[in-house]
Each structure stands twice: as C-alpha cells, then as structure tokens.
C-alpha cells in the first residue's frame, strides 16, 4: 500500500516536472558536464538542458570566473562539434583563452550588438534554431516576461541558454532554471611551489527550480572539474537576498 502511494507521488512529481519544462529522462540526450555532486542538486540528478541558466556577476573578476566556468561547462555541450553563439553588447572575452577550458574557440560565433533590444531578439532567434549547442548572452536587464518568452523558445528547441547578468540595476526574478554565482578562490599549488595554480572557483547555486541549492568549491585542472573535498557535501543555504524595488 505504502509503496503504491510512493509510486503515485513519484509519478505526480514527474508530471509536475514535465509541466515545468523538464524533459522526462531518456527523452533527450543527457549532457554529462562532469559535475557529479552538483548535478545531484538538480531534479532527476541531471544537468538541465534546454532551459535558461542565469549567472550573476558583480565585478569584472567575477565575470571572468563565470566565463571560465561556463566555457568548461560548454566543453561538454560542444563535444561532438557543436556551435555556440555568444551574444553581447560589450564583449571583452578573449576567445583564445577558452582553449584552456576544453573548447575550440573557433566554434564560437560572436554577435556583437549595440542595443539590448537587439540582443533579446537575437537570443530568441537563436533559441529557435535546433542546430546550436548553446547560446550565451551578456545581458544585464531582462524582465520576467522577456525571460519567459526565451524559456518557452528554449524548451521547444532544447537549446541551453546561459545569461550572464553583470551588475544589474535591479535583480529581478527571471524564468531561469538555475541561478549561479561564481567567484574566484585562491589557487593552491603543492607545498613550496611558487606561482599561480589551476583556476579555483566558489560556485554557488543560489536558486534552482525543484532542486536543492548549494555551495561548492571547484577546481578546473587537467581538463576536468575537481570538487574540492572539504565542501563536497551540498550546504543548504538561505534563499538569496533580493533587492526590492
């Protein structure tokens, strides 16, 4: 009897997930991003694709860290030779650096625009194109309605979008599946060695739909993510504080 109830609850949960834009397992190819403990925070323990991920940054140092983290994630998306579009109004990313994160920089197509309005139109067009591996956009301000529109387009085509929100004037809620914040951490080398080590980040999953938020410390070394052991267990954090207004 109890197992029957559990089954019903599991089935209902799945139904709710599908209503909220999650594809059922086996429906789409699972992208293995190599983030074992982090993916457990997501529903079904699968890194969500075909949705919007939101990355919050405050300073250029954080933007650079987010860029590195994103490129490392994209290496999993672009493994079979996919193409990414990078849409931005003020691009400072240096393509040659992405090679260190396991992606071919010539597989990025940059669209450098002048107005944010054009950025929104372009993202939507890109999200309607099934042939893309992912879409990255540099966009500070976006309203909930606009993000919802993008989310619907992404669900249709199963293209994943990463929106990089650099220092937005108003941190409003948008229809994203996950909200990340990536900050650099001091790198560590073996005892006594001079110099700068592999990039390390403090990865915070501030908000995740139907999942568990958490904080981790990551290192990108030798072409893969290494979750640093002392913080491996997800810590349930307070919901992110939002500016009202």
């Amino acid at each position, binding site marked *: 009897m109890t197992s029957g109830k559990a089954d019903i609850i599991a089935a209902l949960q799945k139904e709710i997930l599908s209503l909220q834009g999650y594809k059922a397992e086996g429906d789409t190819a699972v992208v293995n991003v190599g983030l074992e403990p982090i993916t457990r925070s997501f529903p079904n323990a699968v890194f969500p694709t075909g949705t919007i991920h939101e990355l919050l940054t405050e300073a*250029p*140092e954080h*933007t*650079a*860290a987010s*860029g*590195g*983290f994103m*490129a490392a994630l994209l290496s999993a998306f*672009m*493994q*079979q*030779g*996919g*193409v990414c579009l990078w849409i931005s109004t003020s691009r*400072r*990313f*240096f*393509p*040659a*650096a*992405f*090679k*260190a*994160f396991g992606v*071919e*920089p*010539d*597989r*990025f*197509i*940059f*669209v*450098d*625009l002048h107005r944010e309005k*054009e950025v929104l*139109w*372009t993202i939507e*067009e*890109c999200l309607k*194109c*099934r*042939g*893309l*591996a992912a879409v990255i956009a540099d966009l500070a301000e976006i309203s909930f309605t606009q993000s919802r529109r993008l989310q619907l387009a992404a669900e249709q085509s199963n293209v994943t979008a990463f929106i990089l929100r650099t220092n937005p004037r108003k941190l409003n809620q948008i229809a994203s599946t996950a909200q990340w914040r990536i*900050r*650099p*951490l*001091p*790198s560590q*080398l073996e005892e006594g060695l*001079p*110099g*700068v*080590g592999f*990039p*390390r*980040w403090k990865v915070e999953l501030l908000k995740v739909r139907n999942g568990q938020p958490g904080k981790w410390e990551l290192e*990108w070394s030798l072409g893969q993510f290494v979750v640093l052991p002392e913080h491996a267990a997800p810590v349930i954090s307070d919901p992110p504080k939002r500016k009202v207004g």
Partner: protein
Amino acid sequence: MGKRYVTIWFRHLVTDWMTRRQPELQEIPFVFATNVHGRIEITAANKAAESQGIVTGMRVADAKAVFPALKVLDNRPGLEQKLLKVLGEWCIRYTPVVAVDLPDGLILDVSGCAHLWGGEHDYLKEILTKFSAYGYDVRVGMADTIGAAWAIAHYGNVYPVIASGEQTTALLSLHPAALRLDTAILVRLHKLGFHKIASFANMPRSALRRRFGETLLTRLGQALGQEEEFIQPIYINPPYQERLNCLEPIRTATGIEIAIERLLQVLCKRLETEGKGLRTAVLKCYRVDNKIVQAEIGTSRASHHVAHLYKLFELKIPSIEPALGIELFVLEVTKAEDVTQQQEELWAAAPGLEEAGIAELLDRIAGKVGADAIRRFLPAERYWPERSIRLAASMQDKPESGWRLDRPRPVMLLPTPEAIEVTAPIPDYPPMLFRYRGKLHQIKKADGPERIEREWWLDGGEHRDYYMVEDEAGQRYWLFRSGHYTADHRHQWFIHGFFA
C-alpha cells in the same frame, strides 16, 4: 520546308573591335601579334595595315620593314570566342538558332525567319547595315546548306544569296578553299591542278577518298546538301526573375507578404530544378505613383528554401512603403550559385558550422542587425595579444594552426590596457601590490615574466613584460610593465586582463 542558313564572316573581327574601343586607331595601320616559337607573328591586321600589304601570319619584323610606323598590340587569347559569343547573343534578334563558327564567323539557322524582314534580300541587308554601323566589316552568305553559305560569304563575288536548291551550280565555279578544307588537302589539290570545285566534284568518290581522305568528301557533301551538318547553338540563360501583376494596388503588409511568398514559390521551384541557389535578390515594388521601392536580401550560402528566404524578406517588409499602392512586384535574383547538396546524416551527430540551420539563422541575424556584427575568430600566428586572433573570413574558414595552450591567456582582455599604480621590489620581480580603480590588491602569488616584443615592422615602442598575478581574494589578473627599468624615466605598469 527546306532549311536556310546565313553565315556571317567578320573579316577583321579583333581589329574592328579594337577600333570601336579606340576610334583614333581608325586610320592607323595596326596589328595584333603573338610569340610563336620565338618569332613574333601577326595574328590579326586591320584594313589600313592590309592595304599596306601586311597580312595575317607575317612576322612583325617583315611587316615593319614594309611599314615602319606599324602599331603592334599584344594578342589576347580567347578574345575571338568571347566576341563571337556576345555578337551571337545579339544575333538572337534575327533567329533563335545562332552558332559560333570559330575563328571569325557566325552561323544562323534562318529557316522561316527571313520573311519577317520582308524577304531574304532585305534580311541580309539589315544584318549588313547593322554590323557596318557598329564598325564591323562583315560579309554574309545565304544558302540551303551551311557549307554553301560559308563558301559564298568567303569566296563568292556576285550576289550573296544562293537560291534554294541552286548550291551545286553556284559552288562549281569557286575555288576548292571554299569547301573549308585543311591546307594540306588544298596544297595537294593545287598540285594536281584542281583550281575549281567543278574540276573534281563529279569524279568517282572512291578515287577522291583514296587521294584526299574522307574529309574532302564530307565537306563536299555538306556544301551540296547531301550530308547533314550539325551546329551547336548558343544557349542564353533566361534571368531568374519573376513578376507579379496586381489587379488592385496592394497597400497592406499582408498583401506584400502574400506577393513575396508567391514569387518565392515559383522562383525557388525553378532554382531547385536547376540545382541553383540564391545568394542575393532584389524585390522591386512598382508603385502607382511611378516610384520603385526596393528591398534586398543576401544569404551566406546558396539557398532555395522558400521558408528561409521568406523570413529574410519578412524582416524587410516594414521598410517597404506602399504609399498609394503597389501594382507590380518583380523579384530578381542578382546572384545565383550552385547549391551544395548535403548528405543526410545516418546518425545524428551534433551539427557543426556547416549546418544549414545555422547558416539560415546567421542570415536572419545579418538581415536584422548587419553582417558585420557576426564574428568568428581564428588563431593568428602572432604573440602580441591584441593581434593573436584574427577574424574568420567565412564560416567554412579553418584555422591554419592550432590554438595554443602553452602560454596562459586571460579569459577577459581589456581592449586597451589601463594604467595602474604598483609597488614592485626590484627589476624582474612581480609587483607586491597594485591599485586598480582605487582598490588596493595585495599580490600573493605570481607567474612570469613573459616578455612579448613588439612587432617592430608594424609599430615602434616598448616591449611588454607580462605577469599573471593573484591577489589575496584569489582574483587573478594579467599585468605588464612597459619597457625596461632605466634610471632616467619611470616605467609604467598596466592591467590588461582578468583570468578565470
């Protein structure tokens, strides 16, 4: 109905063309010449030169002995063919079947055409007048066979028209060269005393074949109409153009949409059957007030995909102003290319840069915001950071060399380095602390220096010594010092990027 042919012989094709381009050459003897086995031979001479006794095949040195002021121009290979093709296309006005007869003639199949100009005489007169008005010195001939028409044009001296069925009598009095024979056969005929076609036309065929070969019999048969001769007519590609007339002037966006869709459907069907694709196209809208509104589209690769092309035009519809109404739409393909057929993938790999869907997406973006907004970068084999990447010329452009991994580069690179204040201990050591935008950063770890020299052949100035540094918060920067430490002037430090 019997066949009728006209041949046009351009006696000075190349030189007449030159005179047309440079009228001042009209009275001056000039020749075209080319190098044949070390001696310079004349390939074409104009009328003035011929009147001095200079003919084709002469050496330039001999010709100059005859006429020292002779102007010699370089021969252009393939020019005759090009000229004849253009002239042949123009001759389509006289008959739909026109063939090029190298090196200096055109063959027109005029069966059933001459009466439209009021008879064969007037027809030929029209052709002659038109060409001489253009400045071309032509001779024409008309007969039932190509061979006879050619003979009468080149060797006839009375009247250029051979009446139907009269070619045998007309040809008999002509020189054997009128049969379009090789020089070797002509020499042999001359040796044997055959100075007229009549002298051998009635000889037994076997005897002729044994002595002169099959060619003579074929040419004779073709001229007399006993053997068929085939020509390869010039084919003119009809332009990719579609028109749509409107009964009522169109004034709404919906109307324009329907018009574009209909035009595209017809046009793309034709492009598809011919294996062509559209690269650029123009939609011309003729308005009631006699103004023409245009909308242009372009694609990054040839396409005959209606839905895609329609989307590109859709972006342009707001710029089409109908005013009082549009009464005629003309869709014209200004550039068409062969479509590369894509093979269906047997199993779905992640699509790459060659994917048609991405090309169409980029076309749409280019149509909306301009093609220069779309950039892709390839590695350039240079150390100077700003020049170490270059723009890719196209989506198919492949990197010539691999991306380098041995030298760390920042994820974010400032477009221009920004000056910072530093405290650095001694030469060649990284700074201990630096101030960037009013904030003090204590440096805990550092790598470097990596010296990058300027490309002195492009710009002068100091080299840069780059350091990758990490501050107490773990933020990583790319700093550099410009130039050497010297006693007399201060060396400036800059920040150039942020590492991930």
